[in-house]
C-alpha cells in the first residue's frame, strides 16, 4: 500500500467517529445531589477577563506555582552546584552521597543506585502487564476498557472475549505490537461514544507506545527497561492524558461535582485546598472543581514537558494511591494502571525535558557573563508558558454554556 494511501485511510478512520451518534443509554449519569451555581462557570460582567473572581484566584495561584517550578527547573544545574558544592560542601561520606542522590532524584538526573534500578525494572514489568488486570476487571463487570463504560447486552459477550484475548497477549507478553494496535484501535472506537469518553481514556493509550515498539517475538525477551525514546513518548502521552483530563473536569463540571457529592472525602485533600486558599466558601464545590482540575492540569503538564518529572510523578503516585485506597476504595481499582505507568517514568534514569533548550540558552548566557539577559530569558519563558497553560482554556471555557452537559 502506498504511504499516502495509508495516511489517508488512517485519517479517514480518525475522523469517522467524530460524527454524533445516538447513544445516551450508555452514558453514565453523574449523581449530582445539590444544584450547582451555574453562573460561576460562565461570563461574569465586570470581572477581570469575565472570569469569576474565585476561579481567577485559583488560576493565579496555579499560574504562580507553575512559574516558580519552571524558573527553578531552568536553574536546576546552578542550584544543584550551589547546594552541593557551596552550602553543604562540608558534608562527607554517606551524608554527601545521600544528598547527591536526593539532588539527582529531584532534578531528574540519572540515578546511580542499585535498588532504584531494580524498582525501575519491576515498574516496567508492572506497567507492561497492569492493563491486562484492568481489562479483565472490566470484562467481568460487563464494561469496555474502563468500568465506567458499560457494554450493550447484545454485544457484551464479544467485546468481553476480545478484552480477555488482549489481556492474555499482555500477560504472556505475546505479539505485543498486535496488542498495541488493538489498544489504539479500541481507543479510536471509543470515539463512537463521544469525544469526552475518548479523552477520558487517553492514558490507556500510553502503554501502546511500549507495545508497538516491542519486537514481534516479544515473548522471547525480558522487557525490563525503556529506551530514551520510549520514556519520552510514555511521558508525553501519559502527561497529555492527565492534562486533558484536568481540563475535562472543568468543562464537564457537573460530572466532577457529582463525584464529590458521592465521595465527599475527596474535597478534604490538603493539596487541593492549597489551590483554593482565600476563596469564597459559598462556592466551595465550584472552587474545589477548579482547584482539583488545575492541580491535574499542572501535574499533567509538568509530566508531559518533563519539568520536575520525578517530583510531580511522585505526587501523582501519592494521589492515585490515596484515591484508590482511601477515597473511592475498590471502585477505583483500575487506578493500578496509571500508578504503574507513573512508576515506570519516575523510576527511569532516562527522563529528559522538552524545555531543555531554555536551560541551554540560560547556561550559554551564563558563560558569556550576560546575567540580566539570562534572568530575563528564564523569567519570560516561565511567564509565557505559565500564562498560556493556565489562562487560555480557562478563559475560552467561560464562553461555552456547559450547564446542559
Amino acid at each position, binding site marked *: *500500500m502506498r*504511504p499516502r494511501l*495509508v*495516511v489517508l*485511510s*488512517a485519517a479517514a*478512520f480518525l475522523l*469517522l*467517529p467524530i460524527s454524533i*451518534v*445516538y*447513544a*445516551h*443509554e450508555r*452514558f453514565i*449519569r*453523574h449523581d*449530582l445531589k445539590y*444544584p*450547582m451555581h*451555574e453562573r460561576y462557570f460562565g461570563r461574569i460582567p465586570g470581572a477581570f477577563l469575565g472570569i469569576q473572581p474565585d476561579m481567577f484566584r485559583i488560576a493565579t495561584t496555579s499560574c504562580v506555582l507553575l512559574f516558580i517550578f519552571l524558573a527553578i527547573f531552568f536553574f536546576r544545574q546552578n542550584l544543584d552546584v550551589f547546594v552541593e558544592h557551596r552550602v553543604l560542601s562540608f558534608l562527607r561520606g554517606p551524608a554527601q552521597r545521600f544528598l547527591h542522590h536526593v539532588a539527582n532524584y529531584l532534578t531528574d538526573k540519572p540515578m546511580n543506585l542499585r535498588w532504584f534500578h531494580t524498582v525501575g525494572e519491576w515498574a516496567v514489568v508492572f506497567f507492561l502487564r497492569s492493563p491486562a488486570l484492568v481489562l479483565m476487571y472490566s470484562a467481568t463487570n460487563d464494561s469496555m476498557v474502563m468500568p465506567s463504560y458499560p457494554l*450493550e447486552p*447484545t*454485544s457484551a459477550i*464479544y*467485546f468481553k472475549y*476480545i478484552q480477555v484475548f488482549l489481556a492474555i497477549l499482555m500477560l504472556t507478553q505475546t505479539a505485543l*505490537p*498486535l496488542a*498495541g*494496535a*488493538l489498544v*489504539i*484501535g*479500541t481507543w*479510536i*472506537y471509543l470515539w*463512537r461514544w463521544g469525544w469526552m469518553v475518548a479523552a477520558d481514556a487517553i492514558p490507556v493509550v500510553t502503554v501502546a507506545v511500549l507495545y*508497538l*515498539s*516491542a*519486537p*514481534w*517475538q516479544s515473548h522471547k*525477551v525480558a522487557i525490563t527497561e525503556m529506551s530514551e525514546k520510549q520514556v519520552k513518548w510514555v511521558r508525553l502521552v501519559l502527561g497529555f492524558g492527565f492534562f486533558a483530563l484536568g481540563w475535562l473536569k472543568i468543562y*464537564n463540571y*457537573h*460530572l466532577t461535582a*457529582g463525584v464529590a457529592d458521592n465521595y465527599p472525602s475527596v474535597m478534604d485533600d490538603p493539596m487541593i485546598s492549597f489551590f483554593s486558599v482565600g476563596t469564597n466558601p459559598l462556592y466551595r464545590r465550584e472552587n474545589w472543581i477548579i482547584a482539583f482540575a488545575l492541580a491535574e492540569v499542572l501535574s499533567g503538564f509538568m509530566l508531559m514537558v518533563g519539568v520536575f518529572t520525578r517530583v510531580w510523578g511522585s505526587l501523582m503516585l501519592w494521589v492515585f494511591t490515596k484515591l484508590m485506597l482511601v477515597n473511592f476504595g475498590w471502585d477505583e481499582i483500575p487506578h493500578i494502571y496509571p500508578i504503574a505507568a507513573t512508576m515506570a517514568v519516575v523510576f527511569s534514569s532516562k527522563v529528559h525535558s522538552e524545555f531543555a533548550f531554555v536551560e541551554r540558552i540560560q547556561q550559554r548566557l551564563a558563560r558569556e557573563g550576560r546575567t540580566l539577559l539570562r534572568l530575563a530569558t528564564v523569567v519570560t519563558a516561565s511567564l509565557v508558558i505559565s500564562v498560556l497553560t493556565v489562562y487560555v482554556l480557562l478563559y475560552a471555557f467561560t464562553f461555552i454554556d456547559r*450547564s*446542559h*452537559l
Partner: protein
Amino acid sequence: MKFASAKQAILLIIVTCAGLYALDYYKNPQLWHHESQEMKASGKGARLALWMNHLCCTGCLADVRQALAGVPGVDLANATAPRQLLTQEQANMQSTALPDYGNTVELPITDLDKLDLVAIDRALRDKGFVAGRMELGGVEHFRLEAGLDHLCCGMCDRAVHERVAFLKSKGLGGQFKWLDSVSVNHEKKTVIAYARFLEPGKNVDVAEFLSGLNYLGYEPRSMRVVRGEHLQFPIEKTPQ
C-alpha cells in the same frame, strides 16, 4: 529481532477499529438507526413514537395495540409497527436471537387537543407495559400542560420550579435539552413545560417530563400537548 513497521501498525489499528465498528453496527443496530428514523418521520405531521423496552414479537404488539385501542387523539389503524417482528412461534424457538428486545410503535396524532400522555402511560401500564420513551415529533412549537391535583401551597409551587431546574442541570445524558422553562399555575393546578423550537425531523422524549414529575413526588392526572400559536419567547407567555 523483527519489529513492527509503521505500515503494519497502522494497518492493524485500522483493522481493529473497523472490526469493532462493524461488530457494534451489526449487534446494536438500534443505536445507529435512530437518526435515520427521525429523518423519516419529518414531513409526516405530528407523531408520537413509543419506544418500548420490550416489544419482541407479534404477541407483544397485539397487546400494545389492545392497550392503546381506546386512547383518544391517535390513529391506531395507521400506526407504524416495527418491521421484521418475530411471530410468537418464532419467538418460542430457543435458537432465535434478537439484536434487541425493544422496538418502536409510531402513532400518527389525529387530534393534539385530545391527546393525553398520562392516559397513554396508564393504558400501557394496565396491560403490563411501560413506554421507555414517548417521542413527540412534527410539532415545532409546543408546551406540555400537566394537571397536578396536589399543589396546595407556595412551597409546592416553588418545589416544582426549583427541582425541575435541578433535574435539567442533572440531565447529563441529554435529558431535558428540549425544555426551555417551567411555570406553575396555582389556581388551575397545572405545571406548564415550555419546549424549545423543535427542528423538523427531530423529536423529543416527553416521557422525561412525566417521569421527572414522578421523581419530584407528583403524580399528574393528565398531560396535554398544546401547540404554540406563534413565535414568541416562551417565558414571556408565563402567567404571572
